[in-house]
């Protein structure tokens, strides 16, 4: 087990290094950093000066090592546009994204498993066919369309929920939260539902498939035969065993969550990291893009390793060699 964990972490570090190499290439060759840093009207001497002070005249390997060294110290350079350290710019946006993503995952998970269980119990009831049809719509509907339709219905026609922004926020220590004010909660409903949509359908389908398999097992029949109340059989005996793969797959789809948070934040003008990334792409603000990619890679890889380890603990049947 210990060797498995170490190997997974080593693999993670290799992937991170590969990502850092790609980021370095983006930073160095997509657009001329010298020109961007010195300004369009810089003289030859000024350009030379910038080149030397940023070490851009050094050999490639040295430049790359310096890039990694700086990154390890949280120094990803300064945004070309706002002249603020890129990491600060992104960290400032972190709370908004984390709050949106966790709310969405919470909704998706609770609703998804609940509906999945209901559908699996009576697959042929009309109500459940409707739910399944809805889930087919859920996986066939791109996130951006869900968002826009929700804005149209609740923001424009019914006018009951705010269609954009984060609303009123409160500073709690270093964290700026929108979940403590009524206005903030009203603002998070639509984007969270949008982001939850896709995951919800996936979790529903996974739960249903898992339950259908588990419900035919001997130990469930035993549980029924013992005369246990249905609630206990379904939630304690059956669902528990179904949840392991569901949680694993949800965890492994974290990259998907990040990707769709970019889309959701853009539609709802949610002041999060994804929104910042898209703006930076249009402005060719490489330091911010690079920082975002490195941070996203770090988070995604860490979560993957964590999920693998937890899975290994939960399921002793897996062999590692």
């Amino acid at each position, binding site marked *: 087990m210990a060797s498995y964990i170490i190997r997974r972490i080593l693999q993670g570090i290799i992937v991170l290094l590969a990502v850092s190499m790609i980021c370095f290439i983006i930073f160095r060759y997509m657009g001329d950093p010298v020109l961007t840093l010195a300004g369009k009207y810089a003289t030859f001497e000024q350009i030379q000066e910038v080149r030397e002070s940023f070490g851009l005249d050094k050999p490639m390997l040295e430049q790359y090592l310096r890039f990694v060294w700086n990154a390890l110290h949280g120094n990803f350079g300064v945004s070309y546009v706002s002249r603020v350290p890129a990491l600060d710019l992104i960290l400032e946006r972190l709370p908004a994204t984390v709050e949106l993503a966790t709310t969405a995952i919470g909704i998706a998970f609770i609703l998804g498993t609940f509906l999945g269980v209901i559908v699996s119990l009576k697959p042929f009831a009309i109500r459940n066919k409707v739910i399944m049809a809805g889930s087919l719509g859920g996986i066939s509907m791109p996130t951006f369309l869900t968002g826009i339709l929700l804005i149209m219905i609740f923001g424009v026609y019914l006018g009951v929920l705010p269609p954009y922004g984060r609303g009123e926020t409160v500073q709690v220590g270093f964290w700026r939260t929108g979940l403590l004010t009524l206005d903030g909660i009203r603002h998070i409903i639509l984007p969270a539902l949008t982001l939850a949509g896709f995951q919800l359908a996936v979790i529903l389908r996974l739960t249903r498939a898992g339950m259908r398999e588990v419900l035919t097992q001997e130990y469930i029949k035993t549980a029924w035969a013992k005369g246990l109340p249905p609630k206990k059989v379904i939630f304690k005996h059956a669902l528990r065993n179904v949840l392991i793969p569901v949680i694993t797959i949800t965890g492994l789809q974290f*990259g998907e969550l990040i990707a769709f948070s970019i889309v959701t934040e853009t539609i709802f003008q949610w002041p999060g990291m994804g929104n910042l990334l898209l703006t930076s792409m249009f402005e060719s603000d490489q330091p911010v893009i690079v920082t975002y990619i490195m941070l996203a890679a770090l988070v995604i890889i860490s979560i993957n390793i964590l999920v693998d380890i937890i899975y290994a603990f939960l399921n002793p049947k897996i062999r590692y060699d």
Partner: protein
Amino acid sequence: MTKRRIKSKTLSSFLYDPPAVIGSLILLIFFFAALLAPWISPQNPYDLGKVNLDFFLTPPVWMEGGHFPFLLGTDDQGRCILSTIIYGLRTSLIVGFGVVLIAGTFGVLMGLLAGYYGKVLDAVVMRLADTFFAFSTTLMAFLLMGIFNQRGLLTVILAICLADWVRYARTMRGSVLEVKEETYITAAKATGAKDFRLLLKHLLPNALPPILVVVAVDLGVVIMLEATLSFLGVGVPVTEPSLGMMISNGKDYIYAGMWWMIVFPGATLVMLVVGINLFADWLREELNPRLERKES
């Protein structure tokens, strides 16, 4: 004889599955509409000489202020919505089938080689696949489009292919590992068949069926991905028709109540993907011998 029976069995199971038939019908209609776009669409929305700015933001024909021949209304530049949808379907299907074909071929080959030869190639392909999956196809394609300087239909196809091929490689590898153990492969080896022949004549055709399901599911995913990229402004350029871009244009007008610029392209996109998924669901159950069909 046996082959024929299997075929007709498949056909009858298909015909007795109404969702699958509906899905395929939608697909067929959309496919031919896209193919015949220049002849059946009322207007060529990308021919500047034909587009008339006088008719911009016209509502659908049954509403007050609607004009014939703009059945579903026009957008902010006077382009007929119906025509733009038909041309947009073309882009969706070209990107969808293009990616499935290119990424599929490459992924299947890599999976075949990785599964058959194992060792270093296998390790590299599988680690790549793990990493790509962790990042998700959507995020990869999005970041790649951010890196590429030039944007065009080909760039979009290329970016999605780069992000997507591992899906095929992984499935193919798993399938090859299973087929490899079959007696007929050992037999072929014993008769002295060369690697090349073994791979292409024996392994490839027998390991391919699971890939069909991946193709069907992936087609829908890729079409949604193209729409998403174009919606965000990092997909096809503005000169190309795209359902995603139509919706992106329309979103500025929802506060003015001009719903037709979003609802019609959105509905088309969803119908297309639902059609594909209905077909994919049928195919999955048809090819999965473990799942007993028709439980009732």
